[in-house]
């Protein structure tokens, strides 16, 4: 018994040891570029796409420089944390101004793998670079991936508690939303979500697949998601025309208008008018959000969905 107690105590002490001396290790993470390490907790962070801005603001960190700040403000509106107006504008996210990044002397650069691809070596000379794939490989559930990315970034900027807090808040919101919708008798109601863009001729519908982030939110709110096609799992969406909606007539149609013109063109078609969910008015408009791999937009989206069904 004593032996065991001593053994257990010993192992408890030993298990604490890593927390004392493994500071450096704690600042290393695995992302879609491989392993990224920072010397100390990063505080001056540059964000090269909207997703990175959202991750940082969700963790309570104001970035020092971002690309296209006006896009963040436009797509998230007033209800999300404000991006400081003193933040350095770094140009377009496809070709950020490298000098300005260097001049900011950041200790971490966040982005996605497509927009750091071209100048990764230059960026790495400035600061450690961490980047995530916008569409995770392995066809996984994009909501879980987003949350794990949030926690990964939280470790780099030393905000693990804030990440926990954000996840808890999101959980609570989803729970409350679920219960509210349940009282309306909407549990297991089939829905499908599309994002409407004015294509070249006629509306283009970006139809989300079940593993996409917004579809996962809808599932967690109690709906049953109607579109689940193995072919679309890789990116989590397909782009299609109004013809395809015929397959989903039984579901409620949720749509996010990317631009007004898209909606105009969609409404013009006789097919639209005769789709069963249109005739039976099972349609719900939701404000457009740039929603893949983005925590704040996810939170806003779930609130939008709940209020769309309540009204």
């Amino acid at each position: 018994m004593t032996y065991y107690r001593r053994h257990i105590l010993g192992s408890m002490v030993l298990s604490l040891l890593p927390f004392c001396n493994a500071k450096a290790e704690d600042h290393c993470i695995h992302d879609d570029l491989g392993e990224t390490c920072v010397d100390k907790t990063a505080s001056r962070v540059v964000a090269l796409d909207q997703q990175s801005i959202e991750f940082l603001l969700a963790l309570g960190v104001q970035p020092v420089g971002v690309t296209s700040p006006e896009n963040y403000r436009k797509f998230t509106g007033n209800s999300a944390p404000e991006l400081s107006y003193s933040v350095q504008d770094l140009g377009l996210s496809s070709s950020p101004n490298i000098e300005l990044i260097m001049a900011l002397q950041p200790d971490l650069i966040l982005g996605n793998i497509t927009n750091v691809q071209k100048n990764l070596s230059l960026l790495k000379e400035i600061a450690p670079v961490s980047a995530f794939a916008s569409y995770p490989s392995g066809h996984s559930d994009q909501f879980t991936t987003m949350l794990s990315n949030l926690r990964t970034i939280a470790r780099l900027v030393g905000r693990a508690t804030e990440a926990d807090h954000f996840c808890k808040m999101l959980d609570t919101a989803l729970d409350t939303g679920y219960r509210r919708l349940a009282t309306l008798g909407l549990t297991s109601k089939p829905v499908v979500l599309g994002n409407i863009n004015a294509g070249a001729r006629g509306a283009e519908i970006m139809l989300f697949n079940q593993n996409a982030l917004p579809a996962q939110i809808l599932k967690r709110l109690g709906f049953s998601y109607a579109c689940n096609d193995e072919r679309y799992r890789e990116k989590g969406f397909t782009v299609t025309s109004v013809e395809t909606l015929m397959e989903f007539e039984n579901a409620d149609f949720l749509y996010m208008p990317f631009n007004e013109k898209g909606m105009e063109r969609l409404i013009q078609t006789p097919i639209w008018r005769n789709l069963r969910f249109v005739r039976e008015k099972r349609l719900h408009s939701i404000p457009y959000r740039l929603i893949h791999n983005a925590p704040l937009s996810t939170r806003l989206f779930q609130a939008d969905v709940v209020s769309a069904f309540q009204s």
Partner: protein
Amino acid sequence: MMTKQRQSEYIVLLCGALALVFTFALNITQGEASINFAAILNAFFDTQKNLTTDIILGFRLPRAIMGCIAGGALAVSGALTQSILRNPIVSPSLLGIHAGSFLFIVLAVIFAPLLMADHPFLVSISGGLCAVLLVGLIAGGRSAPPLRMLLSGLLVGMSLNGLTEALLILHEEQSRQIIGWNAGSLRQNGWDNLQLVWPWITVSLLLALLMAHQLDVARLGSDAARGLGQKTRLVSGIVFALILILSGITIAVTGPIGFVGLVVPHLVKQAGIRRHAIILPACILWGGSLLLAADTLTYQLGSLTDTPPVGAVTAMIGAPFLLWLVLHQSHGDRGVILSEGQTSRFFLPRITYAPLWLIAVFILSLIILLLIAGLAWVGGYSLSVSQLLQALHGAKGSIAERIVWNIRLPRLCNAFLVGAGFALAGTLFQAVLRNPLADSGVVGVSGGAAAASLLLLALVPAAPPYAIGLSALSGGLCSGGAVYAMAWHLGLSPGRLSIIGISVAALCGAFTQILLIQSRFTGNPLIWLIGSPYGTSWSTTSLLAVTLVVAFPCVWLIAELIGLLCLNDQSAHGLGLDVNTTRLLAGGIGIAVASLCVSCTGPIGYVGLIAPHMARLLVGHLTRPNLLLAPLIGAVLVGAADCLARVIIAPAELPTGAVIAMIGAPYLLYLTRRSLKA
């Protein structure tokens, strides 16, 4: 004889009508919802409306009718262009009309959406008009030799497309709306467009038919036509207006769809039909069938994310056709295309007789000035002169030092080197092709490189930049090599080489379009296609430097032989020159240098074209001084353009290639004007 002619006319018309009916029916069965044939037939007779009826009658039927109308309009405008220019290898898309219309449409969508909504045809037609004027001016008038017309069309098309791409990069949101339009689509959203279009197209087609006899006369040449009592100016004015209206309106509703206007009239004439009264209706029937068949093919690949644009499919059919035309031409009017006589030079007197060393010193000092200005002021971070000097002396670790040494200096060096490389390659291509309008785009290098890098990105989205560079290099070498190999097979005549280059470039372009469409939602693929030394470092500098250090002495050694290439083949032979070996050697070096440059920075057009001309204006036609000066001028051009590109919309930046195109096109115009006067 007469009856036999009549017979083949009837056969062509009848088969055309049958083909049109068949492709029309086939097209209606295709779409994203799977609807079986019985249900489709039902839809036409069903009185009570259901969703299937809506899809067939409101979506697919207008699409198929639009296919007939657009295909017919494009084919007829192609036939008109070929007849009025008496040039068998042109079509509105090869003349840059499509690119011009599309640029104007993009401009209007971005900057004047109301204008675009109210007057789409006006916007599109005026774009086409501008392009055609530009091409005419560069080629030197309506009676310019066919090949020269074609090359100026290609050139104008490339630069206008470059501007369009730059606009799309800068306006991400609109570009998502427009990019699917880029290579044409027949999709319709109900009957609205069709109602708007059909009166215009029908009236224009009828007018064209009424002009049939005049066209028969015009094809004899303007002197003969005048002799037969034709008001040639009036006729060509009307025909040009018809061409612009037909292609402009089609582009406004379907986006640019190339090669229908080239292939269909050819096939019809191939069948032995000579009278325009038959050629034009046959073009309508066969143009409609070709376009509908191409459109039907696109649906085999799945939903919109995977559906290739119909314009890419027609290019995939049309470019090999153009190749076949060149490879198998032997006699008849097609021989005209490739005759040696029509390749011409700009005959320009030197503008200065200053000694070479003085000119070289002057250009070198320009480079040094650019270097200083670029190091001090260009970029997001402002440096004072004293900071710059400290940084150059090596105030280790300071931001200024890192910006100057790690970012500005390598980027400027790369701009200079790549400019020199493109200019060197351009000088070689112009000598080899004996054509003043040749550059790396013409021999297919840029197109091959672009297609190959996008292909790698599609297969391995996270490929590192050096792999993408390697892929571009191999793409450029392969397509350049293929062009050369095919031309070699035909005896390397400059005319054939150019047309083969153009076809290969179009084929690569179609491929690029398809890859672009697939990746437009998940990344920004255009950024790899636009030429700019953005994001390049010292490793690029060393690669480019090694390339030039190896290539330049080689070129210098064979400089005298290259100089003799500008004579015609017989005279060169007479002087003891092995013409083909020299062409192979010089062209090979040119392709290698151009491919390497493209792989480092992406295609930067116009440098290879105008730098050699500027050099010739300064030192005349001696080869060695030209080989020395052209690269220096190229360096100044790209260096200056890159500085401008970074300043105009700071902190964002423009693609360097687009800036050069804006300088290059007017310069080329000036050059042509001067050479016509001289």
